[in-house]
């Protein structure tokens, strides 16, 4: 992917911010890509206009930065009082620990207390291959290869035994989940344990890493050819005609036009605004504090020599 498409993608995501509402249960990537292709054919993208005037200006990227604040869209499980109490608990926890912005594909280091570890704490560095669940049960999976052995740890974001979450490299990948790293060559999920954090400029958009991983030959854990993965380089090498045929059979190309499915699997925008309006002031205050702390950390007083 060259630079221009990347810029286009960013702009498109900005546009889509107003159109589509994304939760864990929606597949975003496919839509974005297809929209992008359509848009290319049609006309150059125009500047996004804000559809509604809101009293409090909630950043449009909040639902990507804090996806776990949006409840599960399943109607049978929803309850406004429960959701409110859950959000209050989440904010209380966020006041105790800095839970940074990160995405699938970012490299994280998680320090957590562990009664069985030597110093009673353990630190694990790895790439985030999946984020799921909402509310206090939000969790993510870190993957790394240590001593030629693939390791994955499932962390719960609001688990109070987590002491610190550092984002070593903030970036996105081409896919929504990177489970295919399990079947890729180990170098694609190997990260140095003593990796230094790579800071991004403030206000810069989160870069999308368009690396394509190389899969090892079959047998695989899943039928990757059926999942329309964009971050895999050599999947065609291992496919026979029968695989292609059966993959074509299970495709559901009409689902991107299924507005009811989209509606059922997402939280309406008005409700999102309500939810984020409720937590915005506190989240914003926490963000400002994080920025202040960061500056404090980066500034090192020069030592007097001589």
């Amino acid at each position: 992917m060259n630079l221009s498409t990347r810029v286009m993608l960013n702009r498109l995501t900005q546009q889509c911010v107003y159109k589509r509402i994304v939760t864990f249960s929606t597949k975003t990537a496919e839509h974005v890509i297809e929209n992008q292709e359509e848009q290319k054919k049609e006309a150059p993208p125009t500047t996004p206009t804000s559809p509604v005037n809101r009293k409090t200006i909630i950043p449009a990227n909040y639902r990507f930065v804090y996806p776990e604040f949006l409840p599960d869209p399943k109607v049978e499980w929803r309850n406004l009082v429960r959701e409110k109490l859950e959000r209050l608990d989440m904010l209380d926890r966020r006041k105790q620990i800095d839970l940074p912005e990160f995405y699938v594909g970012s490299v994280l280091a998680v320090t957590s207390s562990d009664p069985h570890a030597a110093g009673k704490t353990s630190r694990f560095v790895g790439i985030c291959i999946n984020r799921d669940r909402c509310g206090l049960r939000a969790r993510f999976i870190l993957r790394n290869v240590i001593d030629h052995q693939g390791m994955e740890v499932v962390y719960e974001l609001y688990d109070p035994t987590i002491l610190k979450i550092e984002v070593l490299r903030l970036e996105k990948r081409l896919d929504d989940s990177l489970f295919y790293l399990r079947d890729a060559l180990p170098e694609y999920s190997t990260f140095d344990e003593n990796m230094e954090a790579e800071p991004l400029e403030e206000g810069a958009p989160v870069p999308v890493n368009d690396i394509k991983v190389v899969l090892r030959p079959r047998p695989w854990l899943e039928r990757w050819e059926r999942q329309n993965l964009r971050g895999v380089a050599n999947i065609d090498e291992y496919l026979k005609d029968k695989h292609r045929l059966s993959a074509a059979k299970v495709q559901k190309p009409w689902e991107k036009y299924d507005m009811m499915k989209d509606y059922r699997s997402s939280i309406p925008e008005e409700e999102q605004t309500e939810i984020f309006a409720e937590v915005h002031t506190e989240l914003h205050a926490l963000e400002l504090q994080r920025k202040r702390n960061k500056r404090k950390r980066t500034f090192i007083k020069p030592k007097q020599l001589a």
Partner: protein
Amino acid sequence: MMRSVINQLLGLRLSGNSSVLVTQVRDKGHLSRPRLRNPQWFLRKEITKYNDLMTAENKQFVNEVGTNNFGVPVVIKDCLVKTAGPTANEAVWTPNLRRCGVIARKIGQYPLWLKNGERIRTTLLQIVDNHVIKYIPPEEYLPAQVPTVANLHKRGCILVGSETTNPALLTKEYAGIFRNSGVLPKKNLARFIVSPEAQLAPGTPLNVNHFRVGDFVDVRGKTVDHGFQGVVKRHGFKGMPASHGVTKTHRRAGNIGGGGEKGRVWPGTKMPGHMGNRWRIIKGLRVWRINTKYNVMWVQGSSVAGPTGGLVYIYDTILPTRKNKEAPPFPTFYGEPQQDGDDVWYEQVHNFKSESITYENE
């Protein structure tokens, strides 16, 4: 029919001669079940909706008044209740006394963590707008189906209602239940069998402070209705292989009994049938946390019967080892619940406002 007529005639003749009426007991057998007498509060609740030929504006106005005055409040205020001030009853609690329960709604589930780092699953139960409607003393309380309670005759019955509703939607006779209680008509009613010492005056509000953190409760609810289900879903049978020559028996039960002397289907054999929609009591759940502002309690586990939003009834537990050892608020909590919104946490639970959990070196 004929027999009853004859009996009546006989009765008339007998009453002419003497005042003693002999009841026939010969016909009483296993088929003559006790006649179902519903409790006196089982009345038709909703009125028939007629088309009142109202203009749209009037209709909207009436609906607005209804929802404004009688809608279900999320945060419970007692402004709607005009009680004569329930008199606190000064009975002293002893372990054998049985207190009133409350009506709650299951509002969802989420995890909490203990101070040792262990994750527990909890169910949130909200106690919405509960008030005592009526107390029926032991002498007057004669249910058709005798509840399985020890010392039944020494226990009375408290009728509790929850969720105030628009009385315009209710029948006259149903609204009449609430006449002497000083409480507006409620959507849900439940009866609780209590010791006479634990009786409550009509109009007494019940809230989450009726229970304390660390107590154990029994929660009764109606399980989710799954309809007629096969044996795999209903009883967790394994079914049979999907391939390897298996035809037409992938989710069937297989054998249901032996031959010879036992050559029949034994009673209680697990077979397909209706699943769910049954009353179930989950016993001995610990109350981990209480929120007095929204009247919510966090209860151990995720097995409380019923769907999210379903009604459940909460009682003090009857499990002998988990029964209350210290006096709970008896007969109920009479004070003003604190409104600062701070939750009450059980000592073992990690408060999200406190720092992360760390382990000490031995």
